[in-house]
């Protein structure tokens, strides 16, 4: 009974800007071995015919030079820290990567004006609640960072992402992502990732990225194992 009371308090503690109680997604969440349900993306012909090495080399270069990794790469780290502000106006997602945290504005604003907003690797995200589900809409992506997509394809400046965050019980979070980008996907690409609540007092490590480290650079850009010969 006590755990039930605690769980209720944990999951319904926040009120959004509408004044209605919303689920509380705050906390540390980790991936498990069975977290990913990612079908192959149905790619547009031009992307499907590409040499996969092009995307591989692009992403390895971005990692080698410590560029901001961006979405969706940051969402596939573990653990992630979701902070849902008590005033209901913002949700922030932080990761162990040296990368800007995601800002999801839930204060009722629209997307930033594209005439003044410089595209970024994490895009411009706004969110609203549909009953128990936080629906996040993101545009304004740059083509920087690790752009490969789970299931195939990649993020571009024209990508549009809709994510649906929903608690599946107090200790499991489902995030269903749908990417739309006609030049990349023949039809919108949808996958689901499930996060599990991390143990109490979990903390985020800081995984450093050192672009000045030549040995690291060679390891990442040269053929696998070549440094060991």
């Amino acid at each position, binding site marked *: *009974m*006590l755990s039930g*009371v*605690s769980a209720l*308090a944990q999951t319904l*503690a926040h009120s959004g800007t509408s004044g209605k109680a919303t689920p509380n997604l*705050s*906390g540390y969440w980790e991936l498990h071995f069975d977290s990913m349900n990612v079908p192959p993306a149905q790619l547009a012909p031009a992307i499907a015919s590409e040499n996969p090495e092009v995307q591989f080399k692009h992403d390895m270069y971005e990692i080698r*030079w*410590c*560029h*901001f990794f961006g979405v969706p790469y940051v969402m596939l780290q573990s653990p992630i*820290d979701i*902070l*849902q*502000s*008590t*005033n209901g*106006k*913002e*949700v*922030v997602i*932080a990761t*162990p990567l*040296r990368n*800007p*945290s995601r*800002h999801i*504005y839930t*204060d009722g*604003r629209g997307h*930033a004006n594209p005439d003044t*907003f*410089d595209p*970024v*690797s*994490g895009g*411009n995200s706004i969110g609203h609640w549909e009953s128990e589900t936080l629906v996040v809409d993101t545009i304004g992506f740059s083509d*920087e960072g690790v752009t490969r997509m789970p299931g195939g394809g990649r993020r571009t400046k024209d990508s549009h992402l809709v994510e649906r965050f929903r608690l599946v019980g107090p200790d499991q979070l489902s995030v269903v992502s749908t990417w739309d980008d006609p030049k990349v996907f023949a039809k919108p690409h949808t996958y689901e990732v499930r996060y599990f609540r991390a143990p109490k*007092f979990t*903390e*985020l*490590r*800081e995984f*450093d*990225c*050192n*672009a*000045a480290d030549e040995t690291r650079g060679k390891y990442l850009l040269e053929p696998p194992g070549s440094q060991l010969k």
Partner: protein
Amino acid sequence: MIDRHLGLGLARVAALVAILQGCIALAQTAPKPAVPDFSGFWERKDDVGGGNFGGTFAGIPKASVKPEILEQAKREAAAQAQGYVVSYGSRWCLTFGYPFFMQHSAAWDIVQTANEIAQVPEVHTYARHIYLDGRKHPDADHLIRSVNGHSIGHWEGDVLVVDSIGFTGGGMTPGGGRVGPNTHLVERFKLLEGGKKLSITSTWDDPSIYLKPHTYEMTYHRSDPGTYAFEEYCHADDAAQAGSVVQPEQK
């Protein structure tokens, strides 16, 4: 007889458990004292000096540091005078250590929850996590040093008091102080003028660096509603990033 005593005992235990459950449930559902809401974007403005950004440092006292730190500062100033105007860290986009982003011109974001507060910068470093859930600092065997250190906070009335240790070190503070692996920082966050401003009083202490604790206050202005975060990137592979007057020494 034994059965009757056992029955009475069980009844008392059951009653006690029920009372305890009620107390715990009440404690969990009772409203906690309201704490100030720091959430939102904050930025620095020079409202006491000549209006220039550099003026925001005008009121910061000089740190009282050990002679070897002063000598190091003199060497760095001499190198700058000779044209080494871009540091090794800037050249290679190395991670900024705390409190760099607190001195930066870009706004930074506070996200506040019941158990944690994060300070989220735009520059190439990590969000800073301040744990409010009652945890302690890890002991020396379990402490993982980080650029933001390990920070725990508690409320003293309407003041958030944050205690930090475990810095990787190498950073600098306003007023000419340094951050080392054994540095201890205490900060006091307080809203001013009905929440329009945020005062942060910082006290840095480290006998290997300071002759006495270095204390200063910085004030931040709440950014306009609708402010959103940028990503302030740094490209170490861009030749322009190495644009110092004299190429910095490659270590």
